[in-house]
């Protein structure tokens, strides 16, 4: 019987073994793809195997090595990290299936490099999820950026290289100049005999409480650190550091679907929640009003990104801006700084992941079957690709928040938390602002998703298209997108595991 610690180590180690296996089996594509699928399944099994231990509240922690004295690479499995790790590893399975169909049908080159980078990215994601101190989180955050770079620039064209530079430039500049600065600042404050900061480990309630109680740290510095952290996590794509996400759309669609709708961006918002709860502490931030500015920046990001999305004709670009807007839902919910809003933020990681990966899968299927990339070309495509466009419809409705889809559930919790906040501390402008943003964004979502559905199902095919008949995309892709669409529906009715974890996060934030 393996202990939870061993399982957690396996969750980190199996993708690395998978990386080696995939890299070595490049000559035999079928074996290579079998390794990819196998690695995905085993990794998910390892992470899922940790679920009972986490629900029992067991402490699962281990350290790998001491990189510098007092600064180890250490890990601890806690509910919030579980949510992110589960989402990332679960969705890697359909994504692997989808990649096989996509890469083969589109005759992409350098497929071994492509498949080899995925497990590295997953290992980084698991590392971020289970990191126990801010140093470990930073290390894996950077690893995730670097391991996904070859995937973004996969095509190797000058356009891909340019976008790759934007991707790497924004993500590394923000993380080095802001996040690393904050990490080191907290590290320096945590040294000495009477440190102002308790430790660099993630601590329930935050690490500043003692220092604040004994006046060893100025709340203004905490505010500055929080700002450095929020903009140091460029992966959360908060405006104005969001430009890398549309740039990353140059990547093959499986990459956009999985990394830039799930693993990378969710890694970003996960880090935002994690540091808010476990470094700064919800109570501390509320007391000194540190989250207020973030509420408005996130709200503005939601609206502006939605407006930009509405004007994009390129389907993937439209989805990318929709992602930026949806990520800021998580950030905005975090910035509300009530335990219930933290729970809503956590749940939205799950809800958005299922819907958005389905949408990207559909976009990639359309491209593979018909080589269409623009929304304006999609007239009547629903008749030729009914399964794909049905899945697209499910994903889009979930984004808008229509029941019975999982997007509705997370919107429910978000609005509940706003109301709870109003009843707890008295209604002020911020609650109204958040509700207005949610309302406006729902309308905007509808305005840029519904026309696509209308075109696909209710407009006739263009004359040009009649000459080029095509059917559905290859079967692996259809299976994958049907699976994620089914999850989007299923999680409306049966979201207890995710909600239970989110509930544990709520308690940690109390």
């Amino acid at each position: 019987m393996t202990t939870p610690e061993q399982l957690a180590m396996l969750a980190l180690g199996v993708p690395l073994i998978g990386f080696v296996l995939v890299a070595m089996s490049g000559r035999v594509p079928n074996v290579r793809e079998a390794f990819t699928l196998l690695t995905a399944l085993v990794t998910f099994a390892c992470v899922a195997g940790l679920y009972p231990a986490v629900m029992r509240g067991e402490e699962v922690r281990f350290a790998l090595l001491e990189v510098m004295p007092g600064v180890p690479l250490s890990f601890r499995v806690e509910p919030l990290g579980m949510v992110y790790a589960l989402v990332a590893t679960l969705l890697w399975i359909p994504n692997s299936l989808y990649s096989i169909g996509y890469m083969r049908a589109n005759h992409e080159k350098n497929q071994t490099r492509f498949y080899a980078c995925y497990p590295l990215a997953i290992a980084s994601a698991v590392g971020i999820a289970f990191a126990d101190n801010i140093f470990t989180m930073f290390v894996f955050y950077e690893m995730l950026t670097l391991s996904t770079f070859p995937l973004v620039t996969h095509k190797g064209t000058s356009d891909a290289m340019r976008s790759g530079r934007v991707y790497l430039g924004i993500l590394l500049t923000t993380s080095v100049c802001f996040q690393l600065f904050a990490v080191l600042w907290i590290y320096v404050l945590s040294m000495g005999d009477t440190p102002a900061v308790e430790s660099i480990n993630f601590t329930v309630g935050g690490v500043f409480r003692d220092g604040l109680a004994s006046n060893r740290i100025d709340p203004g510095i905490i505010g500055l650190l929080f700002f450095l952290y929020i903009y140091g996590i460029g992966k959360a794509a908060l405006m104005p550091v969001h430009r890398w996400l549309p740039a990353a759309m140059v990547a093959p669609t499986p990459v956009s679907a999985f990394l830039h709708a799930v693993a990378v961006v969710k890694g970003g918002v996960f880090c935002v929640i994690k540091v808010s709860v476990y470094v700064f502490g919800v109570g501390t931030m509320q007391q000194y009003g540190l989250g207020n500015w973030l509420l408005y920046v996130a709200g503005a990001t939601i609206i502006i990104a939605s407006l930009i999305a509405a004007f994009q004709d390129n389907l993937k670009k439209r989805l990318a801006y929709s992602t930026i807007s949806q990520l800021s839902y998580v950030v905005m919910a975090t910035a509300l700084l009530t335990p219930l809003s933290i729970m809503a933020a956590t749940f939205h990681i799950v809800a958005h992941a299922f819907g958005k990966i389905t949408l990207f899968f559909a976009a990639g299927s359309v491209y593979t079957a018909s080589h269409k990339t623009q929304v304006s070309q999609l007239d009547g495509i629903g008749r030729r690709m009914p399964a794909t466009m049905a899945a697209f419809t499910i994903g889009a409705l979930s984004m808008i928040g229509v029941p019975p889809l999982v997007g509705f559930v997370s919107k429910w919790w978000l609005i509940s938390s706003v109301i709870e906040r109003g009843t707890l501390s008295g209604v002020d402008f911020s609650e109204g602002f958040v509700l207005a943003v949610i309302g406006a964004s729902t309308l905007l979502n509808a305005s840029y998703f519904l026309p696509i559905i209308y075109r696909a199902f209710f407009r006739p095919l263009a004359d040009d298209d009649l000459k080029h008949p095509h059917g559905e995309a290859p079967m692996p892709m259809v299976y994958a997108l049907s699976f994620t669409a089914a999850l989007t529906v299923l999680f409306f009715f049966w979201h207890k595991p995710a909600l239970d974890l989110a509930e544990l996060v709520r308690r940690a934030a109390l």
Partner: protein
Amino acid sequence: MELIRHNLPALIVVTPLVMGLLTSIIGRRGLGWWMAMGTTAAGLAMSVQLLVDVLSQGDRTLEYLMGNWPVPFGIGYSVDPLNATVLLIVSLLSAVITLYARKSVASEVPAGKLNFFYALWLFCITGLLGITITGDAFNLYVLLEISSLSTYTLVALGKDRNRRALTSAVNYLVLGSIGACFYLVGVAYLYMATGSLNIADIAERLQPIYASWGTDEPVYQKTVITGFAFMAVGLSLKLALFPLHGWLPNAYTYAPSSVSALLASTATKVGAYAFIRVIFTLVGVGFAFGRLHTDVALMVCSGAAILVGSWLAIRQTNVKKLLAYSSIAQIGYIALGFALANRDGITASVIHLFNHALTKGGMFLALGIVMYRVGGTRLSDLRGLGRKLPITMGAFTAGGLGLIGVPLTSGFISKWYLVSACLERGRYELAGVVLVGSVLALVYVWRVVETIYFGKREDEVTVREAPASMLVPTLILVGASIYFGVDSSFTTHIAGEAADFLLKVKP
């Protein structure tokens, strides 16, 4: 054995000196390389032994008297954790690079001159080791000149590839000699004030002089200040600290590949060491930083070095020159560390001496392979080499990640300590400079990496992977630079010892 062990401090310098003389006489037909290889390998063993010995001493020092003449009359060698570390850096790098040099040098230097090449090579190493170990300020000057004069010639030997090696060498000769003269003038002034040449002795005799400055009758105030000023400028020149870096880019670029690697990884490191020694041991940090505020000047210069060096590196099209400008920036990190004068700062400096020597040495060796196989190191020569020289270019890229300071490379450890030191001193702007420097490093490294992996070659030449004798040393250095980023217990330990020694914290 006991005799050898007792005389190690002298042997580590005398062996390469004697072997160098022998090499120039009998080192023909490939024998020269064998002699150099044996000598540097022995040097490595000796420096490891010295480090072990010094760390086992209660007061962390080993004194050695040349010919048993007592100091201050004779020349005393003195080993402590700081220079034992630098000795290890110099001897490790010189052994690994000598291992690499055989084929590379044979392809770049005329066969008839190989014995002289390896003789100069050993003299250069003699000088570097001697500067590091000596406890005598004048002896330091002599050894500085031994290493410098041989270096000028070694640089000039790159002339068959490119005539500009000659002008670079002359330029280096002029500036290097000015630097050495300035240092000598400084020593003379201090001799005038104290009547001694031994570093520890001068430091002791300076104390009553400093004490007199607060009274009505200050003695030798202007003399000592002038002396230190001359020394500081002279050593800044040797160290290539911005804005006195002018000689460095061309000397590194046009020298033979192995010479560039040796210079980049050891020469400036020894210069930095000498500067640290002068500030912390000779004149004392209370005088240099407390009274004269040299630390502010150093912080400004090193901050500028980081930003300007990196910026100029971005604009280069010759990758060797790009690395040279990057070295100017990295020297800024080293100087910034000791200018902060706190434990983390000095630790950062010493760690970076070590880490940067490994990283930059490894990258220059990888470039040397490109030179050997392709015949040039311009950006266009590197296009698409990722497929043709996968191991070499992989090593180059890994080294590049170290320069940027990506986590789990040794460069990250250096930066971690350096930024911590800045924050401890409350110099937030300098912490920012260091981090911005990393981003600039990202830009110049990534330009090369993109060219290597995504550049298209018009000429489909067949390029084979490098011979093992060149590949293995490259991989040793780059591998070590990664290893010390994952587990830094060795580097942080010895650097911490050195910092404690300099700040006079009792072990």
